[in-house]
């Protein structure tokens, strides 16, 4: 090994070993500080989150409008081989061009979520069903209802209704539906596809009890991370942030 190389090699070696020593020193200091802080922070997670990000006001409990259980999907039912995420959120009521009644479709008529949100199992986005899909039924079904009339107008005009986005994550978060569905539904023994909505409810709440969908889960990083921990999901930042 030449002198030059040995020199520079040692230089780096030193700095690295130093790093690790210091790391432990710093770690102990930090651990103490962290414990002190923690004692003051025996609060529900969301409060801590609110402190993190700013911009969100996240009450601890969501008021319960009649019809659904405040979005606590985890005590609603039990999905085999999966630990449902904790946490609730009180979203705003979004004004949609057509007041789409989820409960009629999902609860009354027992239509699977993935029948309409058909992209969910094939793409990162669940997608809004194309107008043709609605019309495939509503050319004949319930054509006299006012909402359907409205829908038919759109169809005749040949333009799609401008739905408003309810569930969203920041643009630097790259969430994919397909892989979650694969893990929790299709690769999940004892999870019949017919009950898919129980999995969807993890993050979207019991939409089957809602008319217009409403955000009832925080969908913030803490929410994701703790579910990933509970279900041994990946903890590599670059899985979601690219």
């Amino acid at each position, binding site marked *: 090994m030449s002198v030059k190389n*040995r020199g*520079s090699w040692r230089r780096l070696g030193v700095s690295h070993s130093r*790093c690790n020593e*210091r*790391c432990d020193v*710093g770690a102990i200091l930090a651990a103490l500080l*962290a414990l002190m802080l923690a004692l003051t922070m025996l609060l529900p997670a969301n409060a801590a989150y609110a402190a993190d990000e700013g911009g969100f006001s996240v009450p601890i409990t969501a008021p319960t409008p009649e019809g659904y259980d405040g979005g606590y999907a985890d005590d609603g039912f039990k999905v085999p081989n999966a630990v449902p995420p904790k946490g609730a959120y009180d979203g705003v009521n979004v004004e949609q061009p057509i007041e789409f009644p989820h409960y009629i479709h999902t609860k009354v008529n027992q239509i699977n979520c993935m029948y309409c949100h058909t992209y969910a199992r094939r793409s990162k986005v669940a997608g809004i069903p194309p107008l043709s899909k609605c019309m495939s039924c509503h050319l004949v079904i319930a054509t006299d209802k006012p909402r359907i009339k409205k829908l038919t107008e759109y169809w005749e005009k040949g333009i799609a209704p401008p739905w408003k986005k309810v569930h969203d994550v920041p643009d630097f978060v790259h969430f994919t539906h397909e892989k979650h569905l694969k893990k929790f539904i299709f690769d999940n023994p004892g999870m019949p596809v017919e009950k898919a909505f129980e999995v969807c409810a993890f993050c979207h709440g019991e939409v089957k009890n809602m008319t217009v969908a409403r955000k009832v889960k925080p969908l913030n990083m803490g929410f994701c991370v703790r579910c990933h921990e509970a279900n041994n999901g990946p903890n590599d930042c670059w899985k979601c942030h690219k």
Partner: protein
Amino acid sequence: MQTKDINEQIKWAQINNDVLRSLENPRMAYWVAVGICVAMIACAVIGVGYVYTTGQGTLDLYWPDMWGTWIGTFIFWIGMSHSGTLLSAILHIVHADWRKPIYRFAEAMTTFSLMTAGLFPIIHLGRMWNLYWVIPYASDRGIWPNFRSPLVWDAFAIFTYLTSSALFLYIGMVPDLAICRDNARGWRKKLYTVLSLGWAGTDRQWRNFRKTYLLMACFLIPLAVSVHSIVSSDFAMSIMPGWHVTTFPPYFVAGALYSGCAAIITLFIILRYFFRFEEYMTIPILEKTCKLTFVIAMAWTYLNAIEFATVWYGPDQVDKELLINKFTGPYSPYFWAMLFFGSVMPFTLAFEKLRRHIPTMFVVSLFLNVGMWLERWMIVSPTLSLSYEPFAWKVVWPSIVQWAVVFGSFGWFGLLFLVFVKVFPSVSMYEVKEMVYHRRRAVVDDNAKALHRRSSDPQPAAEMPGA
């Protein structure tokens, strides 16, 4: 020619009067100074606001020189803080009692320069509003800072040093605050009453006070050394040529004490002139400070030489090229200026005549600090702009915004200091009295010897402190 550190015939009452007078009815000069400082701060605030809204690019920082003068100035201020501890703690422990009249404002200087330094790492962040991510707090997201990063160590070190030196400053002031309380009226009365913690000068209070003070001093000395060592590791831990130097910690500490002492001389002269402290901040004390500075300057020069030598005889070609670049390259003017101010100028301190000539000392001390500031800049920028990758070599002059903020930081420091000297006694009254007392005892003992008296004989009554 004045040879005594202090005139031991001075009366206690006069000490109180002189010092308390300095707290009252500020003159025009004071308000002008405050005005200037506020104006300077305004420059900085505007600059930072501009950066905040537009982006760091307005600093004319660039790939690959991403740090520039702000980080340099940060180190400069950290360094400035060290001499306060030197005077108040180290000299306290070695019983150098000439420190007593001047350590108070030095300690204040420590605290304030730390408060100034702390701002720079914050405003230089690309997204300063996320600063709190550097602090380890229990996050819902389960993310922690990277404890391997020297920047995180900085955060710990600086906060610790700031709190403890502020505490040290305050504790040392308690007896004086009591004196202020007894003589003050109006809002000052209220303030001092609260701050003096019911100091009555009882025997027990004095004993506890001494213990605490000594304890703090002992605690502060290793802390001060470690702080600048950690700051130096911001650079020493990297693999960049000119940064990865094992002698950086002592080098930084030496530089720190150096700039601090220079700053003390400057402030010494200013206070002595404006507050008429000739009685306390005497020429001999100035001289002693100068001697101290001279020694530190030489130590600093020596460490410089060591660094050059290690690089020159070392194995690393790139390091060597960088050194040559510093001597001859685009940064050479500043580099030579640094060496001149830092290593040549201090020789003026070697001559008694000059040491005792106040205007000279004032100018010299200013230039010494200019040199020390250049040193910091010469550590940061040359390495960044001329390192391993030749394709990335580039030299750009810092933009007006950078200068504005660097300039403004002095205003911020100045304002804090100006407020301090009008609210708190900048000369420690009780310790000056101690000093005078001890000097008198010395005189008495001399007389005793001169008159061949037996020491068992009764002493001529000397005025006791507190009488």
